[in-house]
């Protein structure tokens, strides 16, 4: 049977609290208690009991279940799940780190190879440039020699041609001078009636041709 704790002020019931043997607190409206009292029965026995636990107060069963659940979770997490997950994460990170380090060393080796290759390439380029210069000098020397030979041949051919030309011209001049002297002799003979001296005619023709040639 519940026990009623009644709070009174100036003779009026302002609050009634029922405490049962199972520790459940129950608050009952004063009007209900007053009505029950007027009807002649005991307030605690006749009023409707409405369960009204403190909404803030923690209850043992909730503490028990939350603590139990938490500790089970903590034990499983601490001794099995977290170490296993973390071990996998660490192993994968180590793999990634060693892969990165391997890649770095391969990159460094590749850079060394590239540097060696570039060094060799530079040496080959220098050697190639030397060979090209030497070849160019050889080619230039050969070309100059051949040019000199060709020029000499040209000069020789030109001298021959000039000699032939001079001879042909001299021959032509001789023939022209003879023809002119003959014509001049005939003209002088016809004009004067006597034949001029051949040497004089030839000298005059030669003189005229020289003066004509000098002009």
């Amino acid at each position, binding site marked *: 049977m519940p026990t009623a704790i009644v709070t009174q002020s100036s003779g009026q019931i302002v609050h009634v609290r029922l405490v049962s043997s199972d520790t459940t607190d129950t608050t009952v409206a004063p009007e209900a208690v007053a009505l029950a009292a007027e009807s002649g029965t005991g307030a605690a026995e006749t009023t409707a009991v409405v369960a009204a636990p403190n909404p803030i107060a923690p209850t043992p*069963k909730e503490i028990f*279940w939350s603590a139990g659940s938490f500790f089970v979770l903590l034990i499983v997490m601490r001794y099995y799940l977290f170490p296993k997950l973390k071990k996998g994460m660490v192993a994968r990170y180590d793999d990634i780190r060693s892969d990165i380090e391997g890649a770095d060393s391969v990159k460094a080796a590749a850079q060394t190879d590239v540097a060696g290759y570039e060094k060799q390439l530079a040496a080959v380029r220098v050697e190639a440039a030397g060979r090209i210069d030497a070849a160019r000098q050889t080619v230039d020397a050969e070309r100059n020699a051949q040019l000199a030979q060709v020029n000499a041949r040209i000069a020789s051919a030109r001298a021959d041609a000039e000699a032939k030309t001079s001879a042909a011209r001299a021959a032509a001049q001789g023939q022209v001078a003879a023809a002119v002297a003959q014509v001049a002799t005939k003209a002088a003979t016809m004009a004067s009636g006597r034949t001029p001296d051949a040497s004089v005619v030839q000298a005059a023709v030669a003189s005229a041709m020289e003066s004509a040639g000098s002009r």
Partner: protein
Amino acid sequence: MIALDFPEINSILVWKDLFPSFNKIALIAVLAAVISITIFLLAVRQDHKEAPKGIRNFAEVIVEFIEDGVVMQTMGKDGLAWTPFLMTMFLFIYLCNVPGIIPFFQMPATARMAVPLFLALMVWVIYNVTGIKHQGIGGYLKSTLFPPGVPKALYILVTPIEFISAIIVRPFSLAVRLFANMMAGHILLVTFALLSEALFQAKDKILIPVGILPFFMLVFLTSFEVLVAFLQAYIFAMLTAVYIGGATHPEH
């Protein structure tokens, strides 16, 4: 006028037993543990050598979040041994908070004092024991009650304040912060849900469109509670780490 029949506070906070000594709060607490264990069990079963994806990625994100966002920020590298404990605490609180917005549950387990109080008292015991273990009882009391750099005359004032603050108030502030936030959120959601319902079912037809306003507020508060659920779990874990870190390394 509308008839808004707001339920008694106990009817939205106190739950009947589903079976003897096992109510909705206990169910949520058990489910929080079961869901956490299931997620991590599924995660550890995946091949760790491959790039993490799906549930393993999710689990690793949680681990890294606790390590980088909580432990390294408060305790440094020495505190990494506390990661499983802090992660368990964060997951447990978060999964106890979140049912407040999940249909059919619609109640955060942390809106009852039992869960926050148990966790806060456990943290209190842990950081005090850890402090005593690391510094000895004299050293721990000295570093806690006599903070360095304070003029000796002020210890008359500072020491009682530190005693009340660090030894007495901390567990209650830790518990009440979580409990009050989650209970307030729960009551707000109930209030706006009831107000929306009352307005949508009002006899006066002109009030029906007005119901959209509390309904939008309900939607906003529901999404806000998603943030609060995460934030409160993070704050609790962070403060736990700060207290333990302070007890192990008082010079920090």
